[in-house]
């Protein structure tokens, strides 16, 4: 269970999070939606400790995230970054097996490569891709490699930051399906940030809408369309008119 309680974060005069309170139950897929600049990425980065909140508490399974053994804490997470964030200097398989080549999860090189190739197959990439460099791949393939890296060490919690941004609708659909399948078969707790409503409907068990630094609405994906919240309705239907200002 991931719990955020009254989390605040400002960058200079810009108050990004103004008291985010959210619970993500174990094994559930939570999707956070909201306009650009509403603090979705900052929320994920706060949980991971990449950003330190000014106020509030974040707990994972009852333990404060900024305390205790950081390596052990991070070993429980996998993350797919918006742009892939693949390491340009190493081939694909080393990107995927990064965690398995060093640190407490270190395996023999051959075994790490085998696992990497297996994970690449799981995301629909051929074994030959393993020896290519990230710059030799298309955007969709890079996302898949990022996805393979996120699941390589079989983490309990996986974060997906804009998994379909920049992809064509077919590739976006493939990535959405992959995420759903992997989440179901791994039983992981996941948080996904997206603007893509197709992703929301494919990936989510629950949906939270972040607006103006607070959770505006939260509930099961099945209840999203019928929810009376005007902010949520404007966002999911992509209307220019409504309580959310189109010019921010």
């Amino acid at each position, binding site marked *: 269970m991931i719990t955020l309680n009254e989390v605040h974060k400002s960058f200079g005069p810009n108050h990004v999070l103004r008291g985010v309170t959210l619970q993500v139950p174990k094994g559930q897929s939570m999707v956070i939606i909201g306009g650009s600049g509403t603090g979705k990425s900052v929320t994920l*980065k706060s949980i991971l*400790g*990449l950003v330190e909140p000014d106020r509030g508490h974040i707990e994972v399974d009852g333990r404060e995230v900024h305390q205790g053994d950081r390596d052990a804490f*991070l070993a429980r997470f996998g993350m797919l970054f*918006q742009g892939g*964030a693949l390491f*340009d*200097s190493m081939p694909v398989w080393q990107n995927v097996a990064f965690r398995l080549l060093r640190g407490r999860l270190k395996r023999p090189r051959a075994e790490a490569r085998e696992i990497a190739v297996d994970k690449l197959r799981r995301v629909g990439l051929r074994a030959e891709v393993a020896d290519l460099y990230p710059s030799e791949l298309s955007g969709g393939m890079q996302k898949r490699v990022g996805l393979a890296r996120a699941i390589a060490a079989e983490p309990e919690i996986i974060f997906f930051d804009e998994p379909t941004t920049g992809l064509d609708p077919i590739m976006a659909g493939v990535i959405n399906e992959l995420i759903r399948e992997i989440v179901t078969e791994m039983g992981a707790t996941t948080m996904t940030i997206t603007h893509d409503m197709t992703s929301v409907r494919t990936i989510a068990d629950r949906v939270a809408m972040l607006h103006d630094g607070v959770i505006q609405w939260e509930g099961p994906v099945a209840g999203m369309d019928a929810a009376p919240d005007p902010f949520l309705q404007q966002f999911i239907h992509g209307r220019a008119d409504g309580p959310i200002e189109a010019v921010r």
Partner: protein
Amino acid sequence: MSRVLSPVAALGRSVLAMLAMIGRVALFALDAVSHVFRPPWYGREFLTALVQIGWLSLPVVGMTALFTGGALALQIYSGGARFQAEFAVPSIVAIGMVRELGPVLGGLMVAARVASSIAAEIGTMKVTEQIDALVTLSTHPMKYLTVPRIVAATLAVPVLVAVGDSIGIFGGFLVGITRLDFNAAAYLKNTVDFLELWDVTSGLIKGAVFGFIVALCGCFFGMQSERGAQGVGRATKGAVVTASVLIFAANYLLTEVFFAA
């Protein structure tokens, strides 16, 4: 009144910004050095950095030293002719190269080549979230990116300086025997006779300090890089300019410590 004081205020702001920057670099350096002695260590990254910084800088350092040694011989010969001191060419070329020009020019060439490349690489990693990715993969960026580069540069630049010194002296020797009519054996004897061990050692110590400065500036500015191509460009420029200025400042301080009477 405010119009009169505004240049002073601007100057004050610049000085404060510079002091803040020095403070941040110093804290970064302390943090980096503290990580050198704490595991985990990344041997593969260290070896890669050693090749990138040391081996691949050899051509540029060697060429710089060769031409500098040759030019130095010509300058000393023509200048020394004013007071019949042409015979001093071999010893002054040797002492000038190993004490001063070898380490400083070597350091500057490495700063131009390596500080820029480190800052651009780490800066790009930062703006493309690769640094964040490292953290989520339980890898400390300071240990994985900074420590291997700083240790490699601190060890590699003295070796580069030693090679540069030799090539520079050889450049002076070539000019001496081909253009200035020196006897080859006499030139070499003069070079060896007047050169002391401390001349060489002090230059190598300078090289180690300059190597540390170069990698430190590259890593610091890379990590500080702001978003976008412009941010990476600024980081790269900042790394090279700061490393170069710090090399000159450190060179003066070390010369004062080593050779002031």
